[in-house]
């Protein structure tokens, strides 16, 4: 090994504390990137493979009822490759020992043979036997939530009739990767289930003998989806078709795509922030580190080493540090990534398997970014050192030029003893260096705030949603639109305090080239339970005669403003198309909605007072009895209890939040410590001689520690408010980047966020201070008398 390389490894070993701290910073950035990108890649690959292997359909259509021969006309549509008709029924379920209302979606399986499309992946048990009358396959989320095993039974109320069904299998379907009850905000695996049973048995129970009410298609390779959709709609118009739609409007797939889009954003934004900060820190830390090697560089030059050789020597030095960080980051990121992908498949998406993927490209990018940051920081300092004449480099530095600080110039110096003046002047002597240190520490603080931001934001979103907007205890849906008189019956039920009806009309909203497939909600203008909120999150009455849209729907999806005319294509009944003025914008964090007054919506539909469901306020303690009474009513299809939904939501995301907090704390902690420790160590190297001189002159260890750590403390304290600003900025970026149809994060930072951000900085500083305190005890006092640098 050449002497210079030997020096390399000795230097690395000598600097091991700082090497580790620098590697920790890189590790933090790289781990975030690897974690997010590999999770995204894994879930995308898994989804694509699952969709292909289990023949996920491409176009779907619901209708009221069509005789089976209509399928032949649908099959004849150009571009249709394969189709399958089904019976699909909304049901209520009864599970022994569970009194909350459960809604279910019951789908038919062919009586003989395997399904053509949307095939099931059986996780346990078997599929239903041919022509079986009472066998059922359950979705795995629902089965797992209740502990169903093959052989267990449950009751499904189909069309008002109780059917006892025997569970024979537990399955996952590409149609229900993301399972959420229609009208619900969050998945609730205990209170919503998907079931599959034999076609003839279901048709018999649902009055669909020889008929179907749902059809799925795959398309020929060259088919245009919209053409097929238009033709399907034309065929099904007379059979109560509710509008065919493609995968992008398929419920589960839409949610899955949105979530993956979010993840993709996270995979770009988070690592960009982390790596950016890491690169910045690396640059700062390394340039100072190399500046300390000035004399050695001069000696090497005096020996006749060329600039290039010297430059390469230091580049190698930092590349080794970076490589260490990247390797640790990739390993940690892959580990986190597997954990995160696992959390996703446990809590949100149901896939039969997970293909964990770590794209080598990700590793290459990570290394490139880490190396670039390291090298750029290094070369600046090396160049500066190399420019010196060797003799000059080896001469002791002239005492650096200092001057009285601003605070002193304005006459405050009498308040400060010499050590304090040293601190202040040292900071002011190198304003850029001090500023960079402050910024570096501030970044760690900001990152910590970003990592811990979600919890508070979600609490806020849920609070706005459930305490301001959707205040009902129970939302229930009727089997079909019903006269408003039904509300009086509900109000008379025991335990019901208050009832508000709503009309929910599925529709496509269009404005120019923009469209949104959703629904129009007709609510009560003076509603107490379900309300729309204004910009300041205060309840505001929906004005008559027009529609009020969620801000995201209006601004980002439809691009309309109040006063514009919206085209509404109703997907119900005779499917009228109407023009409706936009009257206002409402603020909402979860989902998107279009609100009208119920009366206005009824008028738009040319119908009398009609409701599709009701919001109920329920006296506490009466829920069980009320649920039972509602359960008995055949026209009540589904019920969603808000409190239970909220609890299940928290149970679901709890694991996520825990995971994120852990990862973020770890990474921000690593970065924070890396910066603070390095700043302190470099300060010590730069000023060791000065401090040792003072020790010789009789200063105690405590007194010199004050000079060194006082500066660190001052910079740390200055960094905290700056860190808060950085944190707010980073969260702001996240808020913008994470806007989606599913939710918009509010820019809410809780006192806990600030406390966490400040504490990572303070703990890092204390820890660094402690390590430095030990080093100060080992200062070589004798050496300073003889040596100059």
């Amino acid at each position, binding site marked *: 090994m050449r002497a210079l390389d030997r020096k390399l490894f000795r230097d690395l070993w000598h600097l091991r504390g700082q090497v580790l701290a620098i590697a920790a910073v890189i590790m933090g950035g790289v781990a975030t990137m690897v974690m997010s990108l590999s999770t995204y890649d894994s879930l995308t690959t898994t989804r694509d493979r699952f969709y292909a292997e289990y023949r996920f359909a491409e176009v779907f259509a619901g209708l009221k009822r069509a005789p089976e021969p209509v399928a032949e006309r649908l099959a004849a549509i150009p571009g249709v490759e394969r189709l399958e008709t089904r019976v699909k029924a909304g049901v209520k379920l009864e599970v022994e020992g569970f009194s909350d209302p459960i809604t279910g979606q019951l789908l038919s399986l062919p009586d003989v043979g395997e399904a053509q499309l949307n095939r099931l992946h059986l996780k346990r048990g078997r599929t239903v036997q041919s022509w079986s009358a009472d066998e059922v396959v359950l979705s795995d989320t629902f089965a797992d939530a209740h502990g169903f095993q093959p052989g267990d039974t449950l009751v499904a109320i189909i069309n008002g009739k109780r059917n006892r069904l025997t569970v024979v299998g537990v399955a996952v379907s590409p149609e229900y990767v993301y399972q959420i009850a229609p009208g619900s905000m969050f998945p609730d695996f205990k209170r919503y289930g998907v079931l599959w049973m034999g076609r003839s048995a279901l048709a018999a129970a649902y009055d669909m003998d020889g008929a179907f009410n749902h059809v799925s298609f795959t398309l020929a390779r060259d088919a245009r989806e919209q053409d097929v959709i238009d033709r399907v709609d034309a065929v099904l118009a007379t059979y109560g078709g509710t509008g065919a739609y493609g995968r992008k409007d398929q419920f589960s797939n839409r949610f899955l795509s949105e979530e993956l889009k979010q993840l993709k954003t996270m995979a770009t934004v988070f690592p960009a922030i982390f790596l950016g900060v890491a690169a910045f820190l690396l640059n700062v830390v390394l340039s100072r580190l190399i500046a300390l090697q000035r004399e050695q560089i001069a000696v090497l030059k005096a020996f006749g080493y060329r600039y290039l050789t010297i430059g390469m020597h230091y580049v190698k030095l930092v590349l080794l540090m970076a490589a260490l960080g990247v390797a640790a980051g990739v390993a940690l990121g892959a580990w986190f990534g597997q954990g995160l992908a696992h959390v996703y498949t446990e809590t949100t998406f149901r896939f039969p398997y997970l293909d964990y993927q770590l794209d080598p490209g990700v590793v290459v990018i990570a290394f490139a970014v880490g190396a670039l940051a390291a090298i750029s920081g290094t070369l600046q300092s090396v160049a500066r050192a190399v420019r010196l004449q060797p003799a000059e480099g080896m001469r*002791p530095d*002239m*005492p*650096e*030029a*200092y*001057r*009285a600080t601003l605070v002193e110039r304005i006459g405050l110096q009498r308040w400060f*003893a*010499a*050590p304090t*003046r*040293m601190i202040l*002047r*040292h900071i002011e*002597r190198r304003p850029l260096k001090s500023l960079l240190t402050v910024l570096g520490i501030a970044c760690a603080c900001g990152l910590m705030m970003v990592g811990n931001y979600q919890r508070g934001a979600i609490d806020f979103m849920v609070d706005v949603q459930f305490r301001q907007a959707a205040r009902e205890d129970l939302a229930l849906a009727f089997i079909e639109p019903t006269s408003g008189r039904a509300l009086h019956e509900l109000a008379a039920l025991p335990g019901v305090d208050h009832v508000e009806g709503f009309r929910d009309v599925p529709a496509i909203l269009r404005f120019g080239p923009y469209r949104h497939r959703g629904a129009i909600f007709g609510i009560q203008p003076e509603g107490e339970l379900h309300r729309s909120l204004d910009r300041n999150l205060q309840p505001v009455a929906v004005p008559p005669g027009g529609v009020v849209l969620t801000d995201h729907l209006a601004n980002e999806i439809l691009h309309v403003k109040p006063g514009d005319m919206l085209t509404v294509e109703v997907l119900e009944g005779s499917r009228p198309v109407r023009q409706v003025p936009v009257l206002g914008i409402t603020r909402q964090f979860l989902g998107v909605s279009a609100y009208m007054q119920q009366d206005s919506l009824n008028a738009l539909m040319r119908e009398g007072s009609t409701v599709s469901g009701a919001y109920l306020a329920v006296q506490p303690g009466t829920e069980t009895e009320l649920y039972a009474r509602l359960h008995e009513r055949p026209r009540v299809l589904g019920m969603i209890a808000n409190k239970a939904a909220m609890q299940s939501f928290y149970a679901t995301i709890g694991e996520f939040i825990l995971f994120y907090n852990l990862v973020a704390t770890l990474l921000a902690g690593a970065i924070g410590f890396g910066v603070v420790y390095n700043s302190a160590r470099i300060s010590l190297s730069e000023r060791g*001689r*000065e401090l040792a*001189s*003072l*020790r*010789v*002159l*009789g*200063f*105690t*260890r405590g*007194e010199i520690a004050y000079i060194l750590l006082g500066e660190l403390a001052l910079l740390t304290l200055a960094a905290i408010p700056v860190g808060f600003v950085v944190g707010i900025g980073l969260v702001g970026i996240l808020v913008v980047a994470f806007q989606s149809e599913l939710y918009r994060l509010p820019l809410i930072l809780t006192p806990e966020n600030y406390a966490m951000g400040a504490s990572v900085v303070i703990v890092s500083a204390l820890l660094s201070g402690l390590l430095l305190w030990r080093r100060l005890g080992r200062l070589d*006092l*004798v050496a*300073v*008398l*003889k*040596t*100059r640098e």
Partner: protein
Amino acid sequence: MIGRMPPDNANPAVFVARGLTKVYRMGEVEVRALRGIDLTLYRGELVVLLGPSGSGKSTLLNILGGLDAPSGGEVRYLDHALTGASEAELTRFRREHVGFVFQFYNLIPSLTARENVAAVTEISESPMRPEDALALVGLGNRLDHFPAQLSGGEQQRVAIARAVAKNPAVLLCDEPTGALDSATGVVVLEVLEKVNRELGTLTVLITHNAGIADMADRVIRLSDGQIAEIHSNAVKKAARELSW
């Protein structure tokens, strides 16, 4: 070999060293830096420790200054034993009684001349005013200059002012002119001479420059870790008469 009579035996002993040894272990090699030094230093004298490098003069100075502990023997400062003192006690000893002057000045670059002195007077019990100390070394007009604005000789004079400002019992100077040209060195030595004369501070000056020895009351020549010779100058030369 005990020293001959001091120049003024009315003065009490400041340091008494008996049988001092110091062994460094450098890897496998044992370096015997001091091999049995017996020495008494008195208040008010100006002593030059002369010897080639490696003779043990710096080791001796470090032990006297409380920067290093001997391997054997004992040192007393007035009625305190320095041998066996704790780190904290040595720090207090340096703080209260010892003034150091270094070869490379070791000023704090971020402090002005006045403040460099004040850094020490602020932690002393009955110091001079920093302005007075700087006037003593002839820098009364450069109080608010930072080290970067001072020449090497001026920096060393600030260092001397800093060392004497606390009214130490002893002033230990390790090659104070080592980094200076001869003319500037003479100016620094004049200052040391003046401090010794006017304040009566025991001044110990290490040098390998025999030319400086003429300004001392006593010259102690070290060689191989032992005292080779102690010699009192019958007539002290004034520092300005020196040259090398």
